[in-house]
């Protein structure tokens, strides 16, 4: 079918779906397009003059994509992204579709898409990316990922189907081992942390997600663990070890909740970066951006400046001001992610005010078992005031109870947020840890609703 006919029909479908107010308005045209022409995404993407970059991994996709976009834009690119949409194939198709003219032309110069781990295979085959970034692989409570090894193999298939440059996290053994799927090893770049990223990082919480050698199955020896299974490792049988990263953080000058200051070494060129996103996990997101930008020939100073100017992505440590209180929104997606934000934001405090909003809708993952994999006992200060809410607030309260932490469940999310604000003294900060759909609920509540203004009364 001629491209313009497909485009006409699908754009009409998109307009119709908006008119009918379909909730799935963002993906629906993507679904129609895939029916009419399964190759549409690839045909459109090939019209972007500077190609396509894909970003995948369990944690940090959205933040890394945002950081890479900022660096690309700072260098003069116009970036087409799925930042506000779905990271499944139909979401990426929909983003391409909505940006293209009826003749299949783009204002944008480059595509940059975050891709769900299990979807990378299909998306990579279709879009023929110039670069693929893989951040990390952790177990995720979303039901569709039963097996981490299966997810890795799916990403590997996607990699094998392209000639893309690879940007791999050297400090994640399962990610680093993905280089074996690359058609050309000289096109693999590793990024990693050489120095101790933060004094007091919590080692020994187990490299349990991926503690075994991807080649021979022996348990890896870790000389350093930064968090989860992220660190410096080698196989005792000598067939696999952490590759030496060419994009590396070699020194961390300061690290606290306002962000980090670190030295980055890119192929021997050293520079200082001031980065306002807190947490070791965000340093890896910054490294991914440095690596991808470097591959595009973007000057290091340009990247450093764009990182210095970055702000948190949707729900990733956004700070809202509310009736004289500051409210941190910290998305809770999976055990490792939640443990990291707890450790970064509340563990150092004496008496933080905390709200956990735990939903079990499809987009959150129906299974809330993962709450037990977070070492709450070690992460939540004894003097905390803790509330829970959401469809599974009761599960969180039970989890905390067995960690020796008292919490009150408030069934209604709005009531929970109001009580949190009321109980937090004026001028102080409260911390909200919502799952994905709970985050959406809270964002809706906080988007200038009159009810919210009345919160503190």
């Amino acid at each position: 079918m001629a491209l313009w006919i497909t485009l006409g029909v699908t754009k009409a479908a998109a307009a119709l779906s908006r008119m009918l107010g379909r909730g799935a308005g963002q993906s629906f045209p993507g679904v129609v397009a895939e029916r009419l022409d399964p190759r549409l995404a690839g045909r459109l993407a090939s019209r972007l003059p500077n190609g396509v970059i894909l970003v995948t991994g369990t944690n940090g996709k959205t933040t890394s994509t945002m950081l890479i976009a900022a660096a690309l834009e700072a260098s003069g690119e116009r970036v087409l992204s799925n930042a506000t949409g779905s990271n499944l194939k139909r979401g990426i198709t929909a983003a391409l579709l909505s940006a293209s003219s009826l003749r299949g032309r783009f204002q944008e110069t480059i595509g940059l898409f975050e891709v769900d781990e299990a979807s990378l295979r299909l998306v990579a085959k279709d879009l023929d990316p110039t670069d693929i970034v893989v951040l990390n692989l952790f177990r995720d409570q979303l039901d569709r990922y039963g097996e981490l090894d299966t997810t890795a193999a799916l990403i590997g298939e996607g990699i094998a189907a392209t000639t893309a440059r690879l940007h791999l996290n050297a400090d994640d053994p399962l990610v680093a081992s993905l280089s074996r799927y690359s058609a050309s090893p000289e096109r693999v770049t590793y990024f990693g942390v050489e120095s101790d990223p933060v004094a007091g990082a919590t080692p020994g919480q187990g490299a349990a997600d991926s503690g075994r050698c991807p080649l021979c199955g022996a348990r890896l020896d870790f000389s350093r663990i930064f968090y989860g299974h992220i660190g410096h490792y080698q196989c005792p049988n000598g067939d696999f070890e952490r590759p030496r990263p060419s994009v590396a953080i070699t020194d961390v000058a300061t690290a606290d909740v306002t962000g980090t200051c670190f030295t980055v070494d890119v192929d021997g060129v050293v520079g200082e970066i001031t980065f306002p996103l807190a947490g070791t996990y965000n340093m890896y997101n910054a490294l991914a951006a440095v690596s991808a930008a470097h591959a595009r020939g973007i000057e290091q100073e340009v990247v450093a400046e764009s990182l210095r100017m970055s702000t948190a992505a949707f729900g990733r440590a956004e700070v809202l001001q509310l009736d004289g209180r500051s409210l941190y929104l910290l998305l809770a997606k999976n055990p490792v992610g939640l443990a990291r934000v707890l450790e970064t934001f509340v563990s150092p405090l004496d008496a933080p005010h905390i709200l956990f909003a735990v939903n079990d809708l499809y987009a959150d993952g129906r299974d809330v078992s993962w709450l037990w994999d977070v070492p709450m006992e070690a992460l939540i200060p004894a003097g905390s005031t803790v509330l829970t809410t959401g469809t599974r607030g009761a599960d969180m309260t039970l989890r905390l109870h067995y960690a020796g932490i008292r919490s009150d469940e408030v069934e209604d999310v709005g009531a929970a947020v109001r009580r949190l604000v009321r109980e937090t003294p004026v001028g102080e900060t409260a911390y909200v840890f919502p799952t994905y759909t709970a985050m959406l609920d809270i964002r809706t509540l906080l988007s200038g609703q009159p009810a919210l203004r009345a919160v503190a009364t």
Partner: protein
Amino acid sequence: MSGTVVIAHLYPWDMNIYGDVGNVITLRRRLEWRGFDVDVRAVDVGVPFDFSDVDIIFGGGGQDSGQRVIGEDLLARGDELCALAAAGTPMLVVCGTYQLFGRSFTTVDGLEMPGIGIFDLQTVGSDVRTIGNIVVESPFGRLVGFENHSGQTILGPGQEPLGSVTAGYGNNRESRREGARTGDVIGTYLHGPVLPKNPRLADHLILAAVGRKFGTTELEPIADGLERRAADVAALRPR
């Protein structure tokens, strides 16, 4: 009440998905709340382990790769575990370890792994995962949890199940039976983890253990309001 209760945690490194560690946390806290000291010891592949003073044994679920890693090691300890089971040591095994406590596990590719045979059951891998909230009627009351497994388990003719399924699937897609029970050895597909929301089951294992060790006949009651609330909520969630 005092004294130390020893819990052996089978393969915490390789079999530890879907919050199964919560079962150990629950056993520990419910013992501590009643004045017992608790010593949790990890059993690891290839490392000698002395079961002689162990009071409760727990093993969780894992990825297929984890199951392959532990298979031979578990088999090597099979006689010892069977003897402990016959002597009345309470055990709880979930998902992947439950399958290997049966006679055999056959992967979807047709590879057969022998189990240690405490339960008379066989499991065959399939292409479909059985995933969702599950509710079971059992001698320990209503049990609520979450199942996520591709293995289909068939009980042998004399094997008692843990309970019958009222929502979800359990052992397989037809039988409406869930888990297996032989004396005080209990196998189940319920994650969640299973014990926090089902404290009667936790206390059954605990009483069996302290009864054998200290002659305890009754446990101090615990106000299980939060446990009941979480279980009630979970039982009403869509699959």
